[in-house]
């Protein structure tokens, strides 16, 4: 573990500023990659510390959450104030505060700076986005500003490392100094009309002081960029054009994480398969090879496969954030989400979750408000992700009658598929409605958001965002996800007894043979359809491959997992499932799409590739033929297929998502809440679907 801030004689420097001021890129420019990222004890506020050395002096840079004011209104701001005052346990009082101020918006940014100056802490003001300000025709007399503020002011362009050296010098020189109280602020306070509320009086006085400080220091001249800015704004916030631009942007972003990531994901899967083949060739077959290939390697593949989607989404988000569109997207979509107690900032995380909940949950980092962020994280896994699609497609294709509904072009399977997506959204809306009235109760969250000016995104910043997102996922979530994969492998591989596997396979053979004989003796020609799959399974046992698949199926049915499936059978019966489906549902805990593979193994097909035509049609044939134990009643009917789909639409059978929820919220409570509530919802949804479907005679 990296050392705590301030230990071993390092200077502790707090980095404070409004959101959207380029504070993160200044952090990277000063300290590079953070040496410690975690959560402050007891709150879900990120603690980010970076250690660097300047002129032989160690400096611990604490990145405080973006805040507009030192009058704390959110947990983020409470943390910022506590750290500044040296009241945060485990964090030494800062030796120096660097206040980040956006040069394009100095008037509002100096509000926070004036509050820090009043604390009397050694302060340095870092003036960021100076290049953008220059493009906009804003000129600032930095020397005069420093004189009036009574503290050093350094102009920095963090991505180009301009002014970083000068800022570091000022940081080294600052400790021990104490800026004078803002000159003239008391005089402004005395002037304010006392009929206003106290907080209004304070704000009026502070802004009056800022106006006085900035008079003659900031010069604004109209430039081409400025008018261009307004023209862009006029288009993107236009009722029609703005909506079209927004729809095109979101469609582009969404389809790229849905489709552009696919070739990369296929490449990763292919590489993992290749490694598995290599391992199989080199290792003697047995428990070790199985652990390495089906446990560890499958787990590693299962982790790495998410990286393309995460990287792509954060690439887009960083570009949107960098050019100022992210806030505008939230502005445009706010009305849509207000009804369920969220704000427009949740739109992109939730939309991304239709591709995959993991990047979606990580994208919730862009929501400053803690309550909204948590609520978004709770709702994200309810959006139907791309891993559910193969499950829907297979079941819709196999068990939903392909009949037109109303129009000749609208077919029932397509309608059911759309309904599965709708189920997630509707349930999410209901859950949000309930949560905002229970667990997340409290006063309505104000939506007071800055719409930053347009600027070109900086590639360095964009790539850093991508690197950070992918890196933190691999580092923090990766090992845990691999761990889960190994545990599930062990549960589905043990206990393993050759003799009882042989016995079960032979018992199956005898059972099928007897059933065929009984059908033949009956002489009923209608029984041919029933006879065929039995004969198929019997003759499969005569091939080496078929026998291996049958033995594998028997081994899985006898494993802890199989036993768990039987154990929970009373629980899944009301959903219309037999123990095999229950077993597959449990086995799909590492990832939902695994359910098809597990069904393949349980039904003696070995490893089927349910995504490929051949594998899926073999699986569909087997599923259609499946009967309840000891009867010839079919397991998979339309209500059962529907109940299974609804279950998978709502359940939290995705270990990676739960791990990421744990990492992003900094607590194990939330993944637990997520898992239990979603499993309960999924069960209730599947129960209602099956029971209603059966009652209606589907």
């Amino acid at each position, binding site marked *: 573990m990296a050392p705590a801030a301030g230990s071993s004689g390092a200077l502790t420097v707090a980095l404070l500023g409004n959101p959207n001021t380029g504070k993160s890129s200044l952090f990277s420019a000063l300290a590079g990659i953070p040496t410690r990222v975690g959560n402050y004890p007891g709150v879900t506020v990120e603690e980010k510390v970076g250690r660097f050395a300047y002129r032989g002096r160690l400096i611990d840079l604490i990145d405080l959450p973006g805040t507009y004011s030192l009058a704390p209104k959110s947990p983020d701001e409470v943390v910022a104030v506590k750290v500044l005052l040296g009241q945060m346990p485990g964090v030494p009082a800062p030796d120096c505060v660097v206040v980040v101020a956006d040069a394009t918006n100095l008037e509002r940014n100096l509000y926070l700076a004036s509050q820090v100056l009043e604390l009397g802490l050694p302060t340095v003001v870092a003036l960021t986005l100076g290049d953008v300000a220059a493009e906009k025709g804003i000129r600032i007399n930095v020397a005069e500003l420093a004189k009036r503020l009574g503290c050093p002011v350094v102009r920095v362009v963090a991505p180009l490392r301009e002014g970083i050296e000068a800022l570091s010098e000022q940081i080294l020189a600052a400790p021990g100094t104490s800026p004078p109280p803002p000159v003239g602020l008391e005089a402004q306070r005395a002037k304010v009309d006392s009929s206003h509320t106290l907080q209004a009086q304070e704000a009026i006085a502070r802004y009056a002081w800022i106006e006085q400080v900035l008079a003659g220091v900031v010069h604004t001249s109209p430039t081409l960029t400025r008018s261009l800015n307004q023209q862009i704004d006029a288009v993107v916030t236009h009722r029609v054009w703005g909506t079209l631009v927004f729809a095109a942007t979101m469609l582009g972003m969404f389809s790229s994480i849905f489709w552009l990531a696919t070739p990369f994901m296929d490449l990763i899967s292919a590489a993992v398969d290749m490694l598995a083949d290599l391992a199989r060739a080199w290792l003697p077959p047995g428990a070790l090879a199985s652990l390495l290939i089906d446990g560890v390697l499958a787990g590693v593949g299962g982790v790495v496969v998410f990286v393309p989607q995460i990287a792509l989404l954060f690439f887009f988000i960083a570009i949107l954030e960098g050019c100022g569109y992210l806030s505008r997207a939230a502005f445009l979509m*706010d009305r849509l989400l207000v009804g369920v107690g969220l704000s427009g900032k949740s739109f992109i995380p939730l939309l991304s979750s239709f591709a995959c909940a993991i990047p979606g949950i990580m994208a919730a980092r862009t929501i400053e408000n803690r309550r909204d962020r948590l609520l978004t994280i709770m709702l994200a896994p309810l959006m139907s992700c791309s891993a559910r699609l193969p499950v829907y497609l297979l079941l819709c294709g196999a068990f939903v009658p392909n009949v037109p509904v109303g129009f000749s072009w609208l077919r029932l399977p397509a309608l059911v598929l759309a309904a599965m997506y709708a189920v997630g959204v509707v349930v999410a809306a209901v859950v949000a409605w309930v949560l905002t009235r229970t667990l997340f109760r409290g006063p*309505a969250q104000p*939506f007071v958001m*800055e*719409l930053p000016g347009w600027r070109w995104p900086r590639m360095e910043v964009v790539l850093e965002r991508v690197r950070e997102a992918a890196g933190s996922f691999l580092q923090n979530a990766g090992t845990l996800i691999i761990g889960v994969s190994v545990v599930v492998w062990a549960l589905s591989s043990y206990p393993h007894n050759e003799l009882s596997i042989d016995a079960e396979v032979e018992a199956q053979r005898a059972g099928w043979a007897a059933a065929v004989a009984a059908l033949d003796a009956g002489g009923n020609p209608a029984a041919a359809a029933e006879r065929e799959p039995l004969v198929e399974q019997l003759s499969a046992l005569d091939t080496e491959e078929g026998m291996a698949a049958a033995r594998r199926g028997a081994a899985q049915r006898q494993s802890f997992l199989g036993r768990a499936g039987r154990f929970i059978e009373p629980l899944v019966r009301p959903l219309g499932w037999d123990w095999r489906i229950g077993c597959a549902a449990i086995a799909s805990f590492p990832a939902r799409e695994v359910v098809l593979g597990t069904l393949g193994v349980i039904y003696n097909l070995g490893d089927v590739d349910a995504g490929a035509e051949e594998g899926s049609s073999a699986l569909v044939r087997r599923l259609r033929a499946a009967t309840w134990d000891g009867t010839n009643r079919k397991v998979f009917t339309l209500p059962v297929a529907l109940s299974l789909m609804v279950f998978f639409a709502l359940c939290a059978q995705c270990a990676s998502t739960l791990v990421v929820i744990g990492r992003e919220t900094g607590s194990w409570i939330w993944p637990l809440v997520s898992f239990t509530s979603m499993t309960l919802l999924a069960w209730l949804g599947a129960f209602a679907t099956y029971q209603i479907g059966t009652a209606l005679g589907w």
Partner: protein
Amino acid sequence: MTSLAKVAIGSSAKVTLVNGTDPTAARLLEMGLTPGVNVKVVGTAPLGDPLELEVRGYRLSIRRTEAARVAISR
């Protein structure tokens, strides 16, 4: 006395008062909507809410419910 929520798009107004003493009122004041300041309503989102304002040289977005608490004079 009328509120910021009723100002037509493209028009400006002068803030006279922010109602209340809760955190939302405090946030509106801190963001620069102090009595005496000039605000321009630049536009609204396609669904009519929230509003886009120009105040103290920058763009600020607030919902109509919040704008309703900001009293103005023309």
